[in-house]
């Protein structure tokens, strides 16, 4: 999973913006750079962020 997210450009040190999330632990939509991606809640929960 790490390498997959990494290759998509979701990696340590990048600025991530959460666009939206579905209720009841649904997928989370993120914006990283100029790309938007939706990832499962389980995966999203494993991403640790620092809040600006």
């Amino acid at each position, binding site marked *: 999973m790490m*390498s*997959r*997210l*990494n*290759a*998509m*450009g979701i*990696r340590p040190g990048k600025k991530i913006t959460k*666009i*939206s999330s*579905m*209720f*009841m*632990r*649904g*997928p989370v*939509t993120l914006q*990283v*750079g*100029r*790309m*938007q*991606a*939706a*990832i*499962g*809640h*389980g*995966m999203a929960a494993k991403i640790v962020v620092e809040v600006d």
Partner: protein
Amino acid sequence: MKILLMGNPNVGKSVFFSRLTGTKVIASNYPGTTVGFTRGYIKIGDEEVEVIDVPGTYTLEPTSTAEEVALLMLQEGDVVIDVLDSTNLERNLYLTQELLEKDTPVVVALNMWDDTRHRGISIDAVRLEQLLGVPVVPTVAVTGQGIKELLDRIPHAVAPSRPKRTPDERWAAVGSIISEVQTITHHHHTRLERLQDASVKPITGLPIAAFVLALSFFVVWGLGELLIRFITEPVFEKLWSPLIMKLSTSLGSGGFWHDILIGRLFDGSIDFEQSMGVLTTGLFIPLGIVLPYVLVFYFVLGLLEDTGYLPRLAVLLDNLMHRIGLHGFAIIPTMLGLGCCVPAILSTRILESKRQRFIAATLISIAIPCAASQAMIIGLVGAEGGQYVALVYGSLIVVWLVLGLILSRVVKGYSPELLIEIPPYRLPPWRMVFTKLWIRIYAFLKEALPIILGAIFVVSLLYTAGVFDKIASFTAPLVSGIFGLPEDAVVAIVVGFLRKDVAIGLLAPLSLTAGQLVVGCVVLTMFFPCIAAFVVLAKELRLKGLLGAIGVMIIATVVVGGLLNAILLRGAGL
């Protein structure tokens, strides 16, 4: 010589491919469709060169089967055209960095170049070429801009064969390149971008999704009906029917071959829905009824794909689909099933795991009524009152959910979590939409038609041999005992194997109560899919999966039919 087209998903690689080769190819936004790669040929000078559209990949360190395929193909290529999305340069350059470490010569295409300006992005392509050490050409695949120049520069492709680096080192290299070649000026949120965000947020997205789905449904249903009424039915009635009647007379209006090829005549003429001959009903089902719906459906689906809406729909519905062991993408086959089961079951191929495909195909064939049967249900049950139609649909939705919950607990295997890129909305490239439609229709005709014809042939044989009568008398007690229907209804259930809508129509003369009609419609929908769907199911799930699905189907039908009988007929006395 072999040219490989490589790049991230959603960079317009397939459009690029069809530009280069002129052959037909599928381009779409969801993962899965390009895993089976496409090849074509192009003339460069006097040489016939092979072009291969490699599955979209984010990295050469494979994380999925599609990426493994991509890596394997790389070893066979002579030149790589690395197609980049210019509006998303940073992420796309990661794959480029990996390619530069390999020994295959590379040319870089900065695709979607026209999109950069109004997004406030400016890229120095000349400087990028110096930094990468390989030719860089801005292109717009949709219009063909830059394609010729790119081909001219293929002989200048070089393989820098950079030393192998770690992912962090590659990202650092990407970072320093980006800071030199790309400048981004701030631009205001466009209306399109606001719509993009609104359509993935639950509060605004769900109503938008409901609207898009309802609209698509009515378009498919309405246009399909129109095509049938004004094109396919007249063709069969006016042109085909006289030919068949001549054949009928020359066969002596009866006998073994007449029964097989033409079937029964009603009042001396052919009824394409009920004659059951290979040349009558056998041709009419796939070409006269299924094809029009399939055609319109694939057109609408193509539009949803190429505008970029489908991934958003998948995100919105992922939650619900996860409960039943699927994920957001399974909404596509499910929606297809409301039109016709055949393309629906075929499209379960887009799901990654075997478990997902089994659950999706089983649920579709059991709980999703096709457009033709829905028309009959609404006509027949609706006459008794709208609340009964609601009861039929309500029961089927409950069956879909409960059965899905059970299957997701019972069926072994894994269902991966959703991970998709959400591309920006784009105007669909019409050329692509139509070529893709043509490929899908062609595949449907090639794959489904022969099997359906064969199956009808076998069924006609069984029918003539009287096997169906035996089944009918054998199962009659079951029908009256468990479902609370009169014994005559068993005929409908047997016919339901051939045509669902005709079978539902056969309930009409039985003077059933409203409650019995509801039970009858639900049981007929859930029981065996029509022969066309059955054959496709067998093809997709293989024998073992098919037997499993049939087992689930029989148990579910008996349980649900029995429950409805107990609640509606015995309990409420309807």
